[in-house]
């Protein structure tokens, strides 16, 4: 029997440790196997009735085993991420009992974690700081400033820089340009975004054909969505549908005018463009805020920050106008209108016209509900011309993909991306199809940040804001989400949720899709010997 770890895709018919990306401790000889057919002497042998524990330390990427509660010492170092607990059984009739923490462990894992917490704490406490006084302050200011610049909060960045006596490395105009492009991407107007990028940063996309391809695929998706400007101008019937995002299952998850940022795990919920504009940390996921309250909140925020930026003022103006005009505000409506306003003002009148504004006013008189909006969700906004344009664009895309392959060789990521995008057409209701999540506005965010990073790199700015790289936050929102979702799906066990970002007991299955494989492992066995630790229960039964 072998107990250990393996990455996804490792052959399940062989003992863990024998193959690449798998690691194991074998009971027959007590050896440890580190992706190799030949083992190293490691620990004692183990057999029926023994309780074997396996602990992965995610801080230093090592692994040690325990036998009946006694630590056997480090078995593996420099482990790769994303390993799954694995048991390999060789003898017919073997049975293992697995404990993922549902029973107390024999080994005192809490004590081990306490030691590491103290260690890390001491490391932080001892971290050398420069001699110069006030260095901390400067560092924090730099972090804030670079964050603001990176995500294009130019007005705030400017004001912040002024009040802290810093110089912003990037010109204001450049920040505004990036912001404009980002907003277009996030609004789903990919065509315009690409055009603007080519205008402002000529040769950027030529040098990044893969990025261009990604953008174009996104454009295709937005065409399906009916949001891309190329199909929108082809006469979507309702102006509403032009500007709004299709209503997604979470009514407030969408129009994130706020650029995405790594610190906010569920920033998809931050629907209020203006608040996000101020701080980047607000997440108004409770969409029941009354318009008035929101307004005043916004206002006070404005005052307290003492920023007097024309751009922001204009937002407020459009907002108050809205308040004046509407007596009853449906939440949905407000969002639509609002995002619209911000998008337009900040993009300096791009597609912004008073006529349009009026249009919308009329439209808002009719009560809009989720149901009705779902009805409106038609391919390319329901226009035949738009569909034709979309099909044509799809062909171009296909051609581009082929050309790209000829020039740069095979790219599985690109291939998959294109396939997924085209799959949308296979369903009568793409939004509710298995590939429908592509249409979710949140999918614009990775595209947006990739483009933003590419622009910054081309201008030799930092690729990621310092804040995002710092130790304090989870490395990316995806991993943070995965961790927090773990206990809720009922299959995994996280030792301590608060420690999730730096510490995980190995047996936290982070991927529910993996579980069946593991379960099959257990099913095919009928004998004894323990896997992992459990407390009071005396070993295993036949």
């Amino acid at each position, binding site marked *: 029997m072998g107990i250990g770890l393996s990455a996804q895709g490792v052959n399940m018919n062989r003992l863990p440790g024998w193959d690449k990306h798998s690691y194991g401790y074998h009971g027959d000889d007590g050896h440890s196997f580190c992706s190799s057919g030949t083992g190293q002497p490691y*620990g*004692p042998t183990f057999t029926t009735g023994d309780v074997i524990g396996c602990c992965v330390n995610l801080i230093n990427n090592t692994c040690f085993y325990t*036998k009946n*509660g*006694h*630590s*056997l*010492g*480090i078995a593996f170092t420099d482990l790769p991420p994303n390993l799954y607990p694995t048991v390999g059984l060789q003898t017919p009739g073997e049975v293992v009992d697995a404990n993922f923490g549902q029973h107390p462990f024999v080994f*005192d894992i809490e*004590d*081990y974690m*306490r*030691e590491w*917490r*103290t260690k890390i704490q001491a490391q932080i406490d001892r971290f050398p700081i420069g001699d110069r006084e006030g260095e901390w302050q400067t560092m924090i200011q730099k972090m804030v400033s670079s964050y603001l610049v990176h995500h294009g909060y130019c007005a705030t960045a400017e004001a912040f820089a002024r009040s802290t006596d810093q110089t912003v490395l990037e010109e204001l105009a450049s920040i505004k340009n990036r912001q404009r492009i980002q907003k277009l991407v996030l609004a789903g107007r990919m065509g315009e975004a690409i055009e603007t990028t080519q205008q402002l940063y000529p040769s950027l996309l030529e040098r990044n054909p893969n990025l261009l391809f990604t953008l174009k695929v996104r454009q295709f998706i937005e065409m399906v969505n009916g949001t891309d400007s190329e199909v929108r101008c082809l006469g979507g019937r309702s102006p509403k549908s032009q500007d709004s995002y299709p209503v997604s299952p979470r009514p407030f998850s969408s129009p994130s005018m706020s650029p995405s940022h790594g610190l906010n795990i569920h920033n998809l919920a931050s629907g209020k463009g203006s608040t996000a504009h101020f701080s980047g940390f607000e997440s108004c996921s409770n969409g029941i805020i009354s318009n008035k309250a929101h307004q005043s909140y916004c206002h006070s925020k404005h005052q307290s920050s003492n920023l007097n930026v024309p751009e922001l003022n204009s937002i407020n103006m459009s907002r108050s106008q809205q308040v004046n005009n509407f007596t009853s505000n449906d939440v949905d409506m407000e969002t639509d209108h609002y995002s619209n306003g911000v998008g337009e003002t900040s993009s300096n009148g791009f597609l912004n016209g008073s006529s349009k504004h009026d249009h919308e006013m009329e439209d808002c008189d009719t009560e809009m509900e989720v149901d009705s909006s779902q009805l409106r969700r038609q391919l390319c906004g329901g226009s035949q011309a738009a569909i034709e344009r979309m099909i044509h664009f799809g062909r171009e895309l296909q051609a581009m993909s082929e050309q790209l392959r000829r020039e740069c060789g095979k790219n599985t990521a690109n291939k998959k991306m294109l396939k997924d995008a085209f799959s949308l057409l296979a369903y009568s209701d793409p939004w509710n199809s298995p590939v429908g999540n592509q249409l979710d506005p949140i999918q614009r965010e990775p595209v947006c940040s990739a483009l933003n990073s590419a622009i910054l790199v081309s201008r030799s700015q930092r690729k990621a804001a310092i804040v995002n790289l710092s130790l304090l936050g989870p490395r990316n929102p995806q991993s943070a989400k995965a961790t927090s979702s773990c206990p809720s799906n009922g299959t995994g066990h996280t030792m301590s949720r608060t420690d999730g970002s730096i510490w995980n007991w190995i047996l936290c299955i982070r991927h529910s899709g993996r579980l069946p494989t593991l379960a099959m492992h257990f099913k095919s066995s009928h004998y004894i010997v323990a896997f992992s630790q459990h407390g009071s229960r005396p070993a295993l039964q036949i």
Partner: protein
Amino acid sequence: MACLLETPIRMSVLSEVTASSRHYVDRLFDPDPQKVLQGVIDMKNAVIGNNKQKANLIVLGAVPRLLYLLQQETSSTELKTECAVVLGSLAMGTENNVKSLLDCHIIPALLQGLLSPDLKFIEACLRCLRTIFTSPVTPEELLYTDATVIPHLMALLSRSRYTQEYICQIFSHCCKGPDHQTILFNHGAVQNIAHLLTSLSYKVRMQALKCFSVLAFENPQVSMTLVNVLVDGELLPQIFVKMLQRDKPIEMQLTSAKCLTYMCRAGAIRTDDNCIVLKTLPCLVRMCSKERLLEERVEGAETLAYLIEPDVELQRIASITDHLIAMLADYFKYPSSVSAITDIKRLDHDLKHAHELRQAAFKLYASLGANDEDIRKKIIETENMMDRIVTGLSESSVKVRLAAVRCLHSLSRSVQQLRTSFQDHAVWKPLMKVLQNAPDEILVVASSMLCNLLLEFSPSKEPILESGAVELLCGLTQSENPALRVNGIWALMNMAFQAEQKIKADILRSLSTEQLFRLLSDSDLNVLMKTLGLLRNLLSTRPHIDKIMSTHGKQIMQAVTLILEGEHNIEVKEQTLCILANIADGTTAKELIMTNDDILQKIKYYMGHSHVKLQLAAMFCISNLIWNEEEGSQERQDKLRDMGIVDILHKLSQSPDTNLCDKAKTALQQYLA
């Protein structure tokens, strides 16, 4: 020349310094008490951290004056306190300072000061006492000379966190051996100190913990009490377990592990208790890891060696925990080649601890390999371990040599290793060297190891004999130390087992019959048993028996008679009867028995003894005497029949013991033939 020029300059500097110091001392004699107080305060500020100034003031006689002021009824409490502070500061200097203070009888004066009602003054006295008692030059007995001191200190424990810290520190340094433990225990040390373990002050907790570790060491009475002491509703062992959690300071983890270890060795906690198996043992193994300081690693390994020494299960667990055996190999890598080049300070530090590290590792290996063959194998297979141990045998440090011998002794219990690694590394060579002129403590262990190396299957036996082991061992049998006598005679016994005639003769010659007799009347039962064993081994195979009996027959028969007549236990008598049976097996030696009626009567007596073992042994003698095929068997049979032996044989053939019954029947058949 340079020296000559330099001397006057030095002199002048010295006189200058002395002059300024003189001023401080002079002010202590001022008639105005206020000026005296100011003088003492200035002196306090002058001596802090200045060892030269301290030495100067002592030379100029400041100490007796300070002590006078401290004891004077008329001195203000403030002055007394300042005096105690200055004295404490002086004690912080070199060991010579402490000696000078002791010469001025500072301890009684300070102890007297503890009777004052003023807490500040008491604390100052205690601080000074603490500094003096923790110095290696202070005899700890000074704490116990006045019987009223300990109870008074116990009473002061409740006064403040400083009295608690200092008093516990004094106790933990002055408690050496069972007498001191008993005194402290009888004055309620356990109850008075136990609640300090939950003190808010880390220093108090730590010193209280240290107190318990010295109190419990090899002391069942204290240990048994500790197990049942409750502090804030928790038992003391549970509190100790909490203190060895991994996030606690290392010093605290180590000391609480010591407490639990000592309580376990004193029999107060079972060796299979979870707090030992799952807490104390892993904690001590962690203390051996590379991350710990050298001092901590030494203490950790020594304590662990002590914990697991008597228990094979603990040895097995320790041997698999955190690669301990490999971890210990690292103890031999100091000073490392890196430290020599990069950092002189580090090299100095490493050198200082190198001996301690090695001896600690040897001790722990000795404990690990005490019982389990697999563990011994693992130790020997560790990189160059046999070489290291063999090198350790000839190190200059007695401590290292002793530990190396203990380690080898532990490993020599393995038959397989005796035949292989011990032979490959010619362990016997350095061992024989160690045995020359070694202190007793080393001799005891080295000679027990020699016993193992002289077992008949050991390939080392031959070369050891050739290098003069017989003389050496015979010398050991004359030692004052009973342990050495046992080992000497034991080794000789092993050596004589199935040995050739020449060796046997050598042993007899070297030992001399006088010494043999002396050993047969030795007060130590073990010595007596092994001597009889030696005789039995000497008297085996017929030609040897006849040869030896022809030269030493008379003395041996006398010795046998003496033991059979004396007050001895069954095992001794049985062993003696077996010797007789061996003699009866000789050709000519038989006659020594047949002509000795006294002996024959004794054999007859033991045939009818109530103890089967003795009956059997006596039966062997008779069988050998009446055996048919040998010359003169008829006469012997007749003589024994006349003595009534046949009747006894008939009786024994009805015995419920089958072995005895069979033997008797076989003997009777000899008569029939």
